[in-house]
């Protein structure tokens, strides 16, 4: 089977870093490029971290710099979760790698044209780059096969009571993407809050012994502490779950849905509204992942990390 050509659009970010570790080893994916976006921390950090992660993994794929903030509003970030540099204070190796000469949305279009309709996007940060690409290139919806995002939630939020961080960070961009005409597979909190890895499992990963496996455990430690204050033991593998979903969705349960983003409410801005459970129905523009086989997920993570 030919691997799926994908672009990984991201804001590294601790769990983005884990997503890199897994994406490199997934035989189902052919990661053509990384596009960076402001999100968990500012664009200068997310871009630098993307380059540093590729250096750390000895992975030769290009990085394209994306949007430094949301399209219509002021930037919010999640430095309290990811640390001021986005890597929880972890020092990635210095690199002479540089970003490419064109920006993220032009790159997305370029690869989409080259792949003649088979390109998929895995977007695990705010959806600004993709929205910019759709705004600039009217032919793009016909050239992208599928978009898998980490973002949103059918029920609760983690940035506010109603909204998940990636969508909250740029709600208008997210709604542009949901309405673009490409099926969007939403790996939101409904599923990713169940994609939990326990401290014991993190230690078992580290015991695999490679520098990548030890990094896996160490880079998430601050978040494990942060999560324990919320009463959660372990770390939710938000972004990695989306990457594994893109590679093989057989251990997930996802349902077709109409999905829109609230951009105007007084307490619900950034909420992904789905028609999954309501009597009122909308045209179906995507899928909402609601469940994951956690044990199978952890097993896959082990298998992938064993390859280092």
């Amino acid at each position, binding site marked *: 089977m030919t691997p799926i050509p994908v672009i990984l659009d991201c804001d590294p970010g601790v769990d983005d870093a884990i997503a890199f570790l897994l994406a490199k080893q997934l035989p189902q994916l052919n990661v053509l490029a990384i596009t960076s976006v402001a999100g968990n921390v500012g664009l200068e950090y997310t871009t630098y971290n993307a380059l540093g992660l590729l250096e750390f993994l000895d992975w030769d794929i290009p990085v394209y710099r994306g949007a430094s903030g949301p399209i219509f509003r002021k930037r919010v970030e999640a430095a309290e979760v990811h640390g001021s540099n986005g890597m929880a204070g972890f020092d990635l190796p210095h690199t002479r790698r540089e970003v490419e000469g064109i920006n993220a949305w032009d790159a997305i279009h370029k690869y989409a044209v080259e792949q003649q309709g088979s390109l998929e996007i895995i977007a695990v940060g705010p959806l600004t780059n993709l929205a910019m690409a759709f705004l600039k290139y009217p032919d793009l919806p016909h050239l992208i096969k599928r978009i898998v995002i980490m973002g949103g939630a*059918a029920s609760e939020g983690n940035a506010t*009571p109603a909204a998940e961080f990636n969508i909250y960070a740029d709600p208008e961009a997210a709604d542009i993407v949901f309405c673009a005409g490409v099926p969007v597979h939403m790996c939101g909190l409904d599923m990713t809050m169940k994609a939990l890895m326990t401290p014991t499992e993190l230690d078992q990963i580290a015991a695999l012994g490679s520098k990548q496996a030890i990094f896996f455990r160490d880079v998430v430690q601050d978040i494990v502490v942060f999560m324990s204050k919320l009463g959660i033991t372990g770390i939710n593998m938000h972004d990695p779950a989306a990457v594994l979903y893109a590679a093989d969705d057989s251990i997930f349960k996802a349902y077709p849905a109409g999905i*829109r983003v609230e951009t105007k409410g007084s307490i619900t801005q950034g909420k992904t509204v789905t028609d999954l459970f309501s009597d*009122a129905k909308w045209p179906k523009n995507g899928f909402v992942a609601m469940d994951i086989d956690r044990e199978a997920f952890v097993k896959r993570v082990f298998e992938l990390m064993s390859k280092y």
Partner: protein
Amino acid sequence: MTSKIPIILDGDPGHDDAIAWMLAKASDKLEILACTSVSGNQSIEKTSLNARRVMTLLGIDAPFAMGREEPLHGEPIHAANVHGETGLDGPALPEPALEPEPVTAVELMAKTISASSEPVTIVATGPLTNVGALLILYPELKPKIAHISIMGGGLAFGNWTPAAEFNILIDPEAADVVYKSGVPLTMAGLDVTLKALVFPEDFERIRALGNRVAVVVAEWLDFFYNFHRSLGYTGAPVHDAVAVAALIKPEILTARDYYVQIETSGDFCRGATVADHYGFTNQPPNTHALVDIDREAFVDLLAEAAAWYGKESE
């Protein structure tokens, strides 16, 4: 001193309101001090006529007053597709044996609460227009409101729109007043009421009781289910009766306490009830939110209540 909980029934009957009132009247734990109507499932004229007919059928001997047609802000919406043209289509009902009091629903609520020696519980099974107005106009009565048991909202989703449940959507401003009031709230939202399903075999059990009220209840369920079946439901979700069951038999319900806010604006989220799962707001819980129900025990409760009317008429 009575050990009964003094209550005001405020609703927009409505099949599930009517079944809720049936449950309330039959309970020896509740004492109905007054009934009030609200615009919602149908126009205020229709819900008021239905309320008086239902009171007559059930033998509720309490004062009744009419609410207003419009929500506190905005235009009314009705649910004729769910409840029929009369708002309570199905079995023939007796002509009302009582007249409305010459006061508004809000005035009757205020008068009833003022006159009660004990704090009063309000069972609100329609839009929160009357209750919201009561809290705005008579804030001094708050200490005399023991509790408001609401059918409305959904922590996770809506029904009339993807984000909003009907009762809250119709009057979000009133709901906002109620949820911010500080009065203890129990919320029977869609999270629990969509689990409070009454199946066709349960209808037959109630019908077989044979008394007049039981037969009417079974026919209301027939009508209510016919609509819901077309949406793919396997039973009739008797939403409003859960708000009464919460007072009579809380042990059959599972609840969680949350700080819940009402979204009053937005493209898609007007009328959404937003629960603070992780303490973002730093506010103490204002809502005892029901999330699960022992369905069979709920059906038993309805059937026992319907059977009570047979003993009454002997």
